């Protein structure tokens, strides 16, 4: 792993769009066979299909099949062309021009034009309309259709990562007609430009999608239909998958992974990802205002043990940075060894020679939070941290502890960029700032990082920001969790991006 990911293609030079494929294809032993129905099992409800707001783990693959975005994140965690064939940015990263594909039509046959893109982004930016993508797109001042196939974004502040933002899972392009109609209709009806069309939507049982014959990538999708089948019971889901009733198990639990991967006729897929647990230590009060106490706890975490026990080895130890190695400009983090003696010495130096009693709060959902708390209690005890664990219902946690309490366990998904990662949690005006770190120098670096399009300069800036994060330990990040999924061996090209919201099901094909 290199220190800087300089070799990666320049984000803004998305002009390498000569291939129409939105993601990297890999070598296949045989030519894809068209036809067949792919059955995907999932354990969470598809409660809505509204692409502006949905956030369910089984809802993302649905909109990934039904809609298209201007850009799409590939398996390499970089933005690739989707509806936009190419894009270019002004030098100061305040003006972006996207060039749309020709001849794209919505599922109802009407053509996609720049006007639909403008309407979509106006809706996302409209404060009266709930939209999840707003937070990564709020620097957009205006969107205009230059001609039928060209859209220009003018930004209020420089933002070099716009191609990542336009690939946001919830930034699906919707027709102007649909947006001007009743917005609640988006929950159950779909008129997108994606490779599949909606046929049946029954949120309690099955969502069936059929092939879009007019998909803008010729020859794709290969499948005739995709069925998303809901199994509220994990044991039933696993049994059906292993018996061959379903072709793909969307999410595999760590505890079941080995058993499923070892079964005949199954290809289990393990994608290193940037999902993490973070231990929040609010710095505006004792004892966490002393960096030595935070460093002591960092040394008191047996990271490999946590990976082995909680993740069943299906993850990687992390060393107190929320920036995953997959993210562009991520630096290599020095290993923090489990060192209870050193931790005890640091604690003593900070004024706690006899150890320290603390209450660690963990919400009961998902179980990984309380599991981390239980394991941390064990490994930190040797260093003089006497942790009492308080497990509470998730709603109580959200209302009383989250973003207020001094010491609790957070759990976050992977963000596409370093800017998005830090602006979610660590900058002074981050969306969910809960560490009370508030470092102006750090804020200035993040601000500088988004205002230049010079790769080398950005790499330098972000390296400095990550070094500051490591030095001050605003969070303890013990591990990054892998994304786990599985498919039958007859299912080819089943892939999941590390940021598990993109699935490329148009490439999937079934054997015989």
């Amino acid at each position, binding site marked *: 792993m290199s220190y800087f990911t300089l070799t990666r293609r320049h984000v803004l030079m998305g002009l390498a769009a000569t291939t129409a494929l939105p993601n990297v294809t890999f070598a296949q032993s045989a030519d894809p066979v068209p036809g067949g129905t792919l059955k995907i099992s999932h354990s969470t409800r598809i409660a809505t299909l509204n692409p502006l707001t949905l956030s369910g783990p089984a809802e993302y693959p649905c909109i990934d099949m039904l809609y298209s975005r201007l850009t799409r994140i590939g398996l390499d965690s970089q933005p690739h062309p989707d509806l936009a064939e190419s894009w270019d940015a002004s030098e100061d990263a305040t003006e972006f021009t996207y060039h749309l594909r020709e001849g794209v039509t919505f599922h109802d046959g009407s053509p996609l034009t720049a006007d639909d893109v403008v309407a979509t982004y106006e809706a996302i930016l409209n404060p009266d309309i709930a939209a999840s993508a707003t937070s990564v797109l709020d620097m957009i001042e205006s969107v205009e259709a230059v001609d039928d196939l060209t859209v220009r974004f003018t930004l209020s502040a420089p933002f070099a990562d716009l191609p990542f933002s336009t690939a946001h899972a919830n930034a699906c392009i919707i027709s102007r007609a649909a947006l001007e109609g009743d917005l609640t209709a988006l929950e159950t009806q779909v008129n997108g430009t994606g490779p599949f069309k909606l046929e049946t939507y029954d949120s309690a049982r099955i969502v069936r999608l059929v092939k879009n014959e007019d998909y803008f990538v010729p020859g794709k999708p290969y499948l005739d239909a995709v069925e998303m089948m809901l199994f509220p019971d994990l044991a039933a889901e696993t049994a059906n998958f292993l018996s061959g009733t379903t072709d793909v198990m969307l999410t595999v639990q760590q*505890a079941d992974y080995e*058993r499923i991967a070892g079964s005949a006729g199954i290809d289990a897929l393990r994608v290193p990802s940037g999902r993490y647990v973070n231990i929040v230590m609010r710095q505006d009060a004792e004892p966490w205002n002393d960096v030595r106490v935070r460093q002591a706890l960092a040394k008191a975490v047996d990271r490999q*043990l946590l990976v082995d*026990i909680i993740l069943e080895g299906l993850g990687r130890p992390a060393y107190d940075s929320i920036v995953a190695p997959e993210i562009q400009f991520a630096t290599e983090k020095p290993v923090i060894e489990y060192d209870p003696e050193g931790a005890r010495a640091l604690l003593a130096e900070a004024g706690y020679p006899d150890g320290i009693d603390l209450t660690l709060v963990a919400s009961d959902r998902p179980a990984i939070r309380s*599991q981390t708390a*239980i*394991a941390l209690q*064990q490994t930190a005890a040797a260093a003089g941290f006497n942790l009492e664990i308080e497990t*509470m*219902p998730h709603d109580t946690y959200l209302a009383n502890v989250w973003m207020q309490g001094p010491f609790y366990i957070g759990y976050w998904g992977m963000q596409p960029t370093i800017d998005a990662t830090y602006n979610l949690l660590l900058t002074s005006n981050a969306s969910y700032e809960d560490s009370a770190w508030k470092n102006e120098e750090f804020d200035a670096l993040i601000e500088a990082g988004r205002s230049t399009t010079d790769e080398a300069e950005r790499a330098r800036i972000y390296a400095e920001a990550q070094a500051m994060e490591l030095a001050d330990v605003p969070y303890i990040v013990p591990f990054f969790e892998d994304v786990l999924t599985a498919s039958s061996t007859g299912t080819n090209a089943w892939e999941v991006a590390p940021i598990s919201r993109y699935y490329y099901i148009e490439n999937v094909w079934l054997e015989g």
Partner: protein
Amino acid sequence: MRRILSSPNGIAGSVLLLIVFAIALFGPWLAPYDPQLFHAQNRLEGPSLQHLLGTDQYGRDLLSRVLNGAPTTVLFGLGATALGVGVGSIIGVIAGVAGGRTDGVIMRILDGMLAMPELLFTLLIVTFLGGGTGQALLAVAVTFTPGMARVARSSVLSVRTREYVLAAVARGESRAWIVFREVLPNAIGPIIVEATIRVSFAIMIGATLGFLGLGAQPPSTEWGLMVSEARQFMFRNPWCVAIPGLAIAMTAMGFNLFGDALRDAFDPKRSHG
């Protein structure tokens, strides 16, 4: 007591209860390991000399955890029943003694509550109050109240018209005196029998709530929670589900058999009928 021990059910129940109470009282001291201590090298193992009942997903000793969880689990059953029986009996006695319109109103309300299946009703209350041991205990107690009130009332009604009560009324005794000295002592038998059997239900409902994540919370060693936490690992080590499950079953069976024997003892006609 001799009558209880005269039936095989009674003996089995008494022995089981003795074991359960002994474990509940001394279990935490008997445990060979700290119930929260990880043995990372020996995760999900079956019984061995080192870990007599095997280990769970964190490598914690199952025997130590079951022993440590006994007081929580048994006290939960006893506490919830005591509360439910106490409140239920008071309501039942008031209804039974007062009679007439008061009786009618109270009983119709209780009938409404009884119409709901016990577990569903408990779940409803816990969902409303939020999870946690205290809330779960309260929920079970509330669920038990209407049933206990009915038992208490019928028992009071059967006693109320007996000659010794009528005699007390004729003597001009005060109402409170009649209730506490004449009615209650003679009506208490069925209430105690019902209460004993209900302890087993309380333990099972408590374990169910723990299993559903609505009762005790990790890292508690409550038995239902242990089953729930280990369920994911059932295929890799059946012991970590079987052991706490078995413990719940044994305790519930103990209270049930003892309650049965107790009922037979109070009502000789049925034991030979």
